[in-house]
């Protein structure tokens, strides 16, 4: 068990070292969320298109675009695994005395690590743009946990998809095809109660909505009523995707 955790940690360490060696990706991926928060939100605010009590629209969508951004980061991990297969890196991992589930968990949590770094940058920039973040260490730690869990779940989902598609070409378009609909069919940029009924139904079963809701509560409103449910859904989501991805993982190299 200790050995198992050590091996997962070794994979996370690699991810941290990678980020330390090259941070440009973190910055380029911060551009889009900042456009949403700094340009889109103020315009919408001006015309009062979306009425939200107590907080500004900019504050409302900050957790939404943050989740969108880390979804993109995570959905990229399946592609990354295919890429590593083509390079032989994955083959080498599979020949090492490490269980398949440790490899999947290591990869998934690596997405969580990157997600945290990505979120830090976005939150800092949002704060500069005038978003008031709840400064409560416990809330922020919970938010970080939720981010890790959510990233891990999407990365595992992505690894599962990669094990079905197997080639980079087939996987390429899938990132957009999955994340954009999930983003728009969630509470990321408008409240669920403003949605038409069919979209409401989709948003309710969309795991993205729960991550957004949880982060919005922990980082912006400070109203924790929904947080237990948000965590529950996210934990179930991550457990299911990791179990499935562990089963299918080795198919990538066949």
């Amino acid at each position, binding site marked *: 068990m200790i050995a198992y955790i050590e091996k997962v940690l070794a994979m996370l360490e690699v991810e941290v070292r990678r980020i330390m*060696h090259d941070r440009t990706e973190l910055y380029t991926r911060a551009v889009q969320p900042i456009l949403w928060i700094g340009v889109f939100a103020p315009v919408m605010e001006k015309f009062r298109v979306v009425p939200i009590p107590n907080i500004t629209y900019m504050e409302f969508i900050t957790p939404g675009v943050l989740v969108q951004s880390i979804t993109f980061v995570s959905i990229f991990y399946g592609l990354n695994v295919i890429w590593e297969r083509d*390079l*032989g*890196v994955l083959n080498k991992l599979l*020949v090492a*005395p*490490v269980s398949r589930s440790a490899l999947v968990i290591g990869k998934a949590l690596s997405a969580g690590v990157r997600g945290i770094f990505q979120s830090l940058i976005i939150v800092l920039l949002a704060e500069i743009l005038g978003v008031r973040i709840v400064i409560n260490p416990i809330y922020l730690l919970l938010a970080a946990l939720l981010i890790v869990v959510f990233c891990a779940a999407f990365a595992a989902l992505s690894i599962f998809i990669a094990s079905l598609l197997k080639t980079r070409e087939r996987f390429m378009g899938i990132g957009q095809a999955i994340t954009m609909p999930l983003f728009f069919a969630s509470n990321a940029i408008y409240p669920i109660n403003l949605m038409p009924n069919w979209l409401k139904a989709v948003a309710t079963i969309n795991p993205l909505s729960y991550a957004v809701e949880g982060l919005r509560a922990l980082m912006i409103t400070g109203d924790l009523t929904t947080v237990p449910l948000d965590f529950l859904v996210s934990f179930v989501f991550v457990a299911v995707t990791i179990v499935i991805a562990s089963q299918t993982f080795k198919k990538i*190299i066949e």
Partner: protein
Amino acid sequence: MSNNVISVRNLVKVYDKVTRALDGVSLDVEEGEIFGLLGPNGAGKTTLVRILTTQIPPTSGEAFILGKSIIEEAERVRELIGYVPQEISVMTDLTGYENMLFYSKLYGVPSSERKRRIENALSLVGLLDKANIVVKNYSGGMMRRLEIAQAIINYPKVLFLDEPTIGLDPSGRKAIWSYLSQLMEEHEMTIFMTTHYMDEADMVTDRLAIINLGKIVAVGTSSELKRSTKLESITIISKFHKEEVKNLLNSLPFVKQIYDGKEEGSVTAYVENAEEAVIEIISTLKENNVDVESLSMNKPTLDDVFLAYAGTKLEETTSALEARKVRRTMQRMR
């Protein structure tokens, strides 16, 4: 089961229900040898390595590494082996040392020993002074050496190398060969390597198997294989009466067959072992006062061996494909 380090019994691998990559492969690798698997592109070399290293299951048949089944005891097998894939598979965005550190942790090298083992392995492949450089900036040969260093971090009993010198220039290839022989001296292990280079199979391996279209067509030391083609011969050119020379040669027990050579006055005798035969032939001819103008020994190359067993020339089947493959490998290194 046997005492062999690797024993392979009747392995068959069919990809996607159509491609028969391995078609009943059986072989044994003995302790402490460098065993080579020589074959053209698509022969099934990588497939065999991937099955033996527990990456993919065989369609049928079985194989054992130090008595452990690669199917039922895959986890145990993984603890015994090191592996260098055909592709250059280092993490190019990290330093050499960081690459080594990662694998030492993955292989569960105790933290107190990590630094020492990493430094040993790196110095063995001549990379210690490059340890803190990001691997992107390594040459292809250096990346290969780093991979070999990684693969021995857990002191494997068996090291699998899939085309370890592909895409390297001659000096890079020679460097790898010398590091491998040094490695064999310092660690007790068995090496199983694939190659499609004749010279590599010839110079580096103790024994080799020739694989073609998923079948092992010959196994032995390179000189055994060459001898088995029965193509060793000695050609003598002499002004002496030709029939007389032929008769003299015919009287020798080890001479198998005699033909007239292409040139005027030349005679070619096929023999079991050219090196031994040449001494006796010279002394017999001397005794009978035959004036020899020139004498040459013809030894078959591995190319001849390949032609004899596989029915095609290895070089022809390889060159074009190889160019493509090398390019691919180089691209990946970028």
